[in-house]
């Protein structure tokens, strides 16, 4: 398998997505789940797997996800997409036209029963199928938490590799949108990062979403794929039209820098980029990393980056930042020039009218960067 490393030229070659404000929330400590990889510095320029000229389309995130699902259903006759309201296209239009093209036996609605949707998906995947289950909002994934944690994650392990549900992919829109309130805004990814046996993947843009989703579906392990719902329409980008995957457990350096490392994922990277732009006027050079896969995460890349910069800030969505902080403090202790810091949502339930106070905004991140640099 070819090891992929990314050139920073690649990042500038794709036109950057257009974003608006982005949200972040909460923090929980999670155990360390690393994956051993070869030594790699963020400085190396690498050969890119992407050919110079690719045919692309300017589309938004839900269209990119839709394309990925079309590709999977096309290429694998034993793949299925199911969930609440996916038939007509889904509440976020991610499953548009799938039922018309592939039929009701492969793209079908389920009743309102999250626990059963995932349980059913585990069973279907165990028979060697690609089961792509949709949970309508990540806030509703909790009835299914038992199935994911106790069944999906442990099946291969406890059966001594006799059985597995690797073909299962659970997709759920997550994250704040500005007016979602308590139950349409949560970022529950950290709950799943405690669980060995599954993977948690979060894309930041349309082209990332298509590649990562294709990789997640084809990965032989159960994957929980959170999609930043705020970006479904808002993020527009040139997305390659063909079938391509992006590697899992491989973080990407979005911006090279020398003073401080910022790690994040999903919609919140847009705000982090804005913060980086603002502090660059003060002469602070930030290295911005998109983790992409939360578990198992690319420890080596982050460690290399922190070894270079000496500072780490994780203005994270959903609390997995605690694990990153603990792990990096352990491995890069002598190199650190400032305490590892995090900027998260407040320790309250996701509020209704107070959302602007709750979120880790650009200014909060800028303040944290300055505090770290001036420590």
């Amino acid at each position: 398998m070819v090891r992929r490393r990314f050139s920073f030229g690649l990042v500038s070659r794709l036109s950057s997505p257009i974003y608006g404000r982005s949200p972040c929330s909460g923090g929980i400590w999670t155990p360390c789940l690393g994956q051993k990889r070869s030594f790699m510095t963020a400085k190396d320029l690498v050969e890119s797997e992407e050919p110079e000229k690719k045919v692309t389309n300017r589309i938004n995130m839900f269209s990119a996800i839709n394309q990925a699902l079309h590709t999977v259903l096309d290429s694998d006759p034993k793949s299925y997409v199911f969930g609440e309201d996916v038939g007509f296209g889904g509440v976020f239009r991610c499953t548009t036209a799938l039922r018309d093209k592939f039929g009701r036996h492969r793209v079908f609605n389920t009743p309102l029963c999250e626990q059963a949707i995932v349980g059913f998906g585990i069973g279907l995947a165990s028979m060697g199928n690609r089961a792509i289950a949709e949970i309508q909002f990540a806030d509703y994934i909790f009835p299914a938490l038992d199935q994911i944690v106790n069944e999906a994650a442990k099946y291969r392990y406890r059966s001594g590799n006799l059985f597995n549900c690797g073909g299962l992919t659970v997709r759920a829109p997550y994250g704040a949108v500005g007016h979602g309130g308590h139950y349409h805004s949560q970022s529950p990814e950290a709950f799943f990062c405690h669980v060995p046996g599954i993977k948690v993947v979060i894309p930041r843009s349309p082209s990332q979403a298509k590649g990562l989703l294709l990789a997640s579906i084809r990965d032989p392990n159960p994957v929980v794929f959170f999609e930043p719902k705020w970006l479904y329409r808002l993020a527009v980008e040139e997305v390659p039209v063909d079938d391509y995957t992006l590697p899992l457990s491989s973080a990407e350096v979005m911006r090279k820098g020398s003073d401080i490392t910022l790690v994040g994922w999903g919609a919140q990277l847009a705000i982090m980029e804005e913060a980086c732009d603002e502090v660059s006027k003060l002469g602070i050079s930030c290295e911005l990393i998109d983790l992409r896969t939360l578990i198992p995460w690319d420890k080596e890349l982050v460690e290399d980056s922190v070894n270079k910069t000496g500072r780490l800030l994780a203005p994270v969505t959903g609390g997995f930042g605690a694990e990153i902080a603990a792990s990096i403090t352990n491995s890069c202790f002598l190199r650190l020039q400032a305490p590892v810091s995090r900027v998260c949502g407040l320790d309250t339930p996701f509020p209704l009218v107070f959302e602007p106070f709750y979120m880790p905004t650009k200014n909060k991140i800028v303040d944290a960067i300055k505090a770290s640099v001036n420590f």
Partner: protein
Amino acid sequence: MNGSKSMLKLAAAALSKGLQESPLKSGLAEKGNFCRTVFLTRRYSAECSGKETNPTSKKSDSGEIDVEIPVKFDLHLLESGPSQVTTTNKEELMKIYTDMQIIRRAEIAADMLFKSQMIRGFCHLYDGQEAVSVGLERALSYDDNVITAYRDHGIFLGRGGTVFELFSELMGKRTGCALGKGGSMHLYHREHNFWGGWGIVGTTPPLGAGLAFGQKYEKKPNVTAAIYGDGAGNQGQLFEAQNLAALWNLPLILVIENNHFGMGTAEWRSSKKTTHYDRVSYIPGIKTDGMDVFAVGEAFKLCKEHCLSGKGPITLEADTYRYHGHSMSDPGSTYRSRQEIQGMRQERDPIERVRKIILKEELATNEELKDLDKQIRHEVDEASAKAREAEFPGEEELFANIYKADSGLIVTGCDRKHSKVQMS
């Protein structure tokens, strides 16, 4: 598609024997998925032969009015059902009319407020289902517990909440019933035992079982009505709650407001069995016409008696309909025909039927009712204006009541430096 269309025409032809001319007949000509939805209203037209559009009532000498309940109650594991005739009087009728009209006007006002972005977030409107909320109050007292899901504006108003509190809460203002922190889906009324307002589908039955247990333990002569929708009928926790309630003989009325659509999914597409009152072989049930406030009232009376006589839980299915879509982001017409919605408004509107009885029994003139409507509209508009002027909750509310006050706890952000708030 073609095959199902011709089958539909045959079925429709069979049904149309003996039916009155109804605006719904033209619904049969509609193409696409809407055809089957016509059956919803057609069943009622077949049973009632127009009695619903012209309700039968009789005034006695004492001034009491006997109103007929045209649609028969469907019973499950019950020997006898409620009476098909209910007795009422002028005062009650005018109150019922006013209460339902207030809910209707409030929902229409909420619709406009949402569209002008004064209400953000989510807004699930109750218009069309007023008979359930007002009918419930005919039988239950404020000492009985009521808990419902997110379509709670009507239940809140029925439980004695004011329109001003409702609009304030919808707009997130401090004067709202939950201090503006709950919003549309989380309305509460402590004194009148309205336990909310719950966002997650299927959550209310087990919660209701707990409330009912509390009432039984304290030997209160009260019941709990746990309300949920047809979408929640397939949630696992409902099954668990049913078993608990029956096993422990709890005074729990499991009320299902069946408006036939779980968001955009019609009941026959999501459920093997489209009725709910008879799903459980060990819990009796009753199905009532949820657009008839008197039918709902009688059904609730029977359910309350059943529970208080120690016979355990009972299911009440109210066959109702919502005119708006699932929420404000749903136009409500992509999965059902406009003709069906129109037909419901014309043939089964709960307020219209009460208006007809009032007019028929000459309890008020048309002009008086129109004046009453105007007055209600004016009051609702006033409440809305007042709510718009009200303040948002202050910043201290952001951290208040996460835990109990005076816990000596300090809320911080994760960094413990920048945000540090003593919880008062």
